[in-house]
């Protein structure tokens, strides 16, 4: 496998508070109207950022002290809704290598894995502790250690988890699955030829 092995991710973090942040908010649909993923990083949370500016607030993705962060901290059900890969693509192209959250929507989680963006979960109180620490001191360096399932931030160490096979895929570089799936294509053909709907419904029925 040619893909990068991802075992530890170090850098500063960006806290993005809120439950159920959907992919329409992460990457508004009008930016999907392109035949490439190039430049998507400029449009992350664009409408939320404009809304914040209008009310005199600074959105975390506009906050200069978080610029250059490698890790985003989120709450529950991050990335819900649309299957648009443009959302994790935008994050990855901004330089984000990992998202640590209470939970993730399933399609977002899968899309992130496909591009080597690690999504790991932590307990709500630990997320709150990490967010509070980073908000207090944005220069805090985090070190996410997938092998040992921990994230260290200053004097704070919290447990993080990710399904074992996802962790293994990241650590062995097997997250880019296309090669794996194309391997042993004879087995795929053999299975296809047994499927009733690809063989005139004359195949044996399932047990």
């Amino acid at each position, binding site marked *: 496998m040619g893909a990068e092995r991802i075992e530890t991710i170090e850098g500063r973090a960006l806290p993005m508070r*809120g*439950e*159920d942040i*959907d992919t*329409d908010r992460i990457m*508004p*649909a*009008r930016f*999907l*109207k*392109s*035949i*490439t*993923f190039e430049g998507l990083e400029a449009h992350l949370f664009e*409408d*939320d950022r*404009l*809304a914040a500016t209008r009310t005199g607030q600074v959105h975390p993705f506009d906050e200069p002290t978080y610029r250059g962060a490698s890790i985003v901290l989120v709450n*529950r*059900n991050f990335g*819900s*809704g*649309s*299957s*648009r*890969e*443009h959302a*994790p693509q935008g994050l990855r192209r901004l330089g984000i290598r990992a998202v640590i959250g209470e*939970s993730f*929507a*399933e*399609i977002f989680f*899968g*899309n992130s894995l*496909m*591009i080597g963006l690690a999504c790991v979960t932590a307990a709500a109180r630990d997320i709150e502790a990490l967010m509070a620490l980073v908000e207090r001191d944005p220069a805090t360096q985090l070190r996410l250690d997938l092998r040992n399932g921990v994230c260290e931030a200053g004097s704070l160490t919290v447990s993080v988890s990710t399904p074992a*096979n996802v962790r*293994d*895929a990241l650590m*062995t570089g*097997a997250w880019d*699955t*296309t090669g*794996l*799936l*194309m391997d*042993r*294509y004879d*087995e*795929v053909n053999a*299975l*296809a030829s047994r*499927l*009733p*709907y*690809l063989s*005139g*419904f004359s195949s044996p*029925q*399932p047990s």
Partner: protein
Amino acid sequence: MGKTLLQKVWDLHTVRTLPTGQTQLFIGLHLIHEVTTPQAFDGLRERGWRVARPDRTFATVDHIVPTRQRQRPFLDLMAEDMIASLERNCRDFGIPLYDIGDDRQGIVHVIGPELGLTQPGLTIACGDSHTSTHGAFGAVAFGIGTSQVRDVLASQCLALEPLKVRRIRVTGRLPRGVYAKDVILTIIQRLGVSGGNGYAYEYAGDTIERMSMDERMTICNMSIEGGARVGYVNPDETTFTYIQGRPFAPQGDVFERATAWWRSIASDRDAVYDDDVEIRAGELTPVVTWGVNPGQSIGIDGTVPRAGGADQQATSDALTYMGLQAGQPIAGLKIDVAFIGSCTNGRLSDLREAARIVRGHHVAPHVKALVVPGSVAVQKAAEREGLDKTFRDAGFDWRDAGCSMCLGMNPDKLEGNQVCAASSNRNFKGRQGSPTGRTLLMSPAMVAAAALAGQVTDVRELVDEVPAGVR
């Protein structure tokens, strides 16, 4: 011990367990469209790969297409670029494309079933989260991202984690004026927008069994709004009758063999579920969303909730965005736009029911109202019945087929902070194309009622006036 449909279909399509521990799952049908595929085809070209099964891949255009003034090139040059890219990719890789001007064009989740491509027992993937719609036929169907589209194009397979199954039994008679849309909005409200994470939802019970395929599709379509990537209904006579005679349906003797197999893949009576939930249809009312996710909904008799408890921040944030006051009744809320259409509720029976409500009435003067058929086939069938005239006479725009105002990727968009009564599936912030636009999700009949009244209205007061129709 019996198996669920999900387990049977999953086992049947499992090629092997990958070194990563994931399942390599064969995909029986791959549906593609213009928005989530250009980069996937680029990925194939970069690596010199072919499409593994162009015979199991079908394309159409829906997301970016205008619903009027469809002559090429499109006025929106970026949209033109996307459609031209799909045309080139389908030509180069030998994939059938139901393009603008083709009688088979339409929203991908409407045309798959219409053409008979969607059948029980298949695994179906598409770069769109509402692929769960096809589960209405007893298929295992899920939305994927662009890199996974590339995987399916190249290998006809996906690397996936197995799913648990939650059975949701809906029992009893639905009251008049309460529809499939109200059932699924209620399910999402009760189980939460992330309640289905890691699950497939199996919709069962006598209410579901009595539903038409259109109604079952509405239910399965919104599974993803409850966090469940997959939703399905066990196939039965209603399913087989719908499929029979469609262009890609098995013909003659083969159809008989097919139905025997389709029956066999339904969940066994003694199947074991990871979770079981019951919803009583008789208690349901028409539902309207008040917030910024599809779980934030109330019955038409209800009042907008107060911020409190665990969801305090989310509730107060949603109320601020929507410009609503806690405790305010949802009925009577003024609307600016009424949208009937989408993969959730853009099928013929949806249009018939909405037409039944608007016939002989007129849209309120301040409301912009549009009806967008889910496919050219729906459009033509509706026109044969004169539904286009009913809608036009009532002051609705009658449009050509596409995703339209569901998602803000084509010329149909909200402006400013307009409030839209919508038969679509998402009320996310900015979803309908204006960053401050506001969406109220409801059934197409409720949208029709709101369009006439100019405000959110209880459709049960209107359906009394007209003879019982399709239901």
